[in-house]
């Protein structure tokens, strides 16, 4: 069983750590770095709760080994908001009741984040295509869909404000 040194940047912070080859990225984030905002669900890529951004792309962190993240840039739900307050996507989920128990929410937020970074004005089909990769078992998807639409409008408003600033 080989051990490896990995250098990863998580939420802008550079980490160097030694990991067992078999450690998944999600276990590394939670157990080694203490970033427990990323949840673990099915551990075979179906539920999407462990979704993080790897070099900006929404990725199942249970379907990647920590050693494979060497040299890459990871963003977790802890990296969304500034030190104070919520990120606009988080605000939108709160305002539109996009979460109930909250277990699946980190994955939904990160998948939504990637979607809106690429396109702050996605259509229903595009949103559904992304949300289709995330399971929720208590809130229901209609309010999540509304949350993403609201998050998109908040993102557009913020970009417009930034452009004027």
């Amino acid at each position, binding site marked *: 069983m080989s051990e490896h040194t990995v250098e990863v940047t998580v939420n802008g912070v550079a980490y160097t750590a030694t990991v067992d080859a*078999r450690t998944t990225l999600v276990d590394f984030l939670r157990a080694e770095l203490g970033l427990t905002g990323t949840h673990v669900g099915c551990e075979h890529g179906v539920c999407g709760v462990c979704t993080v951004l790897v070099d900006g*792309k929404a990725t199942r962190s249970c379907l990647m*080994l920590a050693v494979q993240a060497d040299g890459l840039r990871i963003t977790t739900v802890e990296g969304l908001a500034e030190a104070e307050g919520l990120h606009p996507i988080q605000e939108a989920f709160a305002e539109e009741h996009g979460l109930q128990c909250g277990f699946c929410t980190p994955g939904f937020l990160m998948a939504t984040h990637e979607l809106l970074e690429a396109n702050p004005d996605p259509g229903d089909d595009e949103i559904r295509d992304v949300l289709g*990769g995330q399971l929720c078992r208590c809130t229901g998807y209609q309010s999540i869909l509304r949350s993403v639409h609201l998050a998109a409008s908040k993102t557009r408003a913020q970009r417009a404000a930034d452009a004027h600033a």
Partner: protein
Amino acid sequence: MKPAPLDYAAPETLAEAVALLADASREAKVIAGGQSLMPMLNMRLARPELLVDLRRVDGLDHIREEHGAIRIGAMTSKREVEQSPLVRERLPLLHAATLHVGHPQIRSRGTVGGSMAQADPAAEYPCVAVALGATMRVVGPGGERTIPAADFFVTYLTTALEEDEILVEVSFPVPAPGTGWSFTEISRRHGDFALAGAAITVALDGAGTVADSAIVLFGVGPGPVRAHAAEARIRGGRPGDELYREAGAAVAAALTDPPADVHADSEYRRHLAATMTTRGLAEAVQRT
């Protein structure tokens, strides 16, 4: 739900990767995007002693047109395929099939070579490779060889790759102008593995009758199933509902024993295969 203990190597050259696979002292397995292998590792359905990661090997991530074919490196992600204007324009069948592979979150890491080498009988890419007459470029200790897609997929999760060979590129011939195509898939939820699906290409001659076709099904056998009888049945025929139904009937008659599982029994998969052939052929002809 954690992988069994294993070693990991990320060599920088193909030669090193091949040497690691050829070393008989350890059971080694190639990992590409890991979207099929990682679940198998987590569930301990696969317990290799060594993972050989291709992520540092140069020259495996590209989509380019050369000599009438689109050549796609084995480590090219499905997201790159999905977003490639070249694929959309020259291989619309592959583009359409890509949208059925998992979800964007899976396509971001899942690779072209990984899907081919995994050879899941319910997967989209092997079927498209057979329908388009793709060629697999493979590197092993003895050098390089090419394998036609039709010979590459042997049976369930089994390809013609030797233990110490690595798939490095898939070359898809660009269909002749005017070739119609369709991709149909039935799954319980979008992004799930297919219950059954069909990739079809069709070319008409000057008289408007069927000159050539490829009808390939997935999810209904141990690998992609080429419907030779249905293709022969429609050759020279005049496109129309009757011909499409006959093609569907020929598919149903030729399918000996489609797999049965909790999602669909054998008879239902046979029915789906026939229906998708009938509908898919009509759609493909419309695109000629």
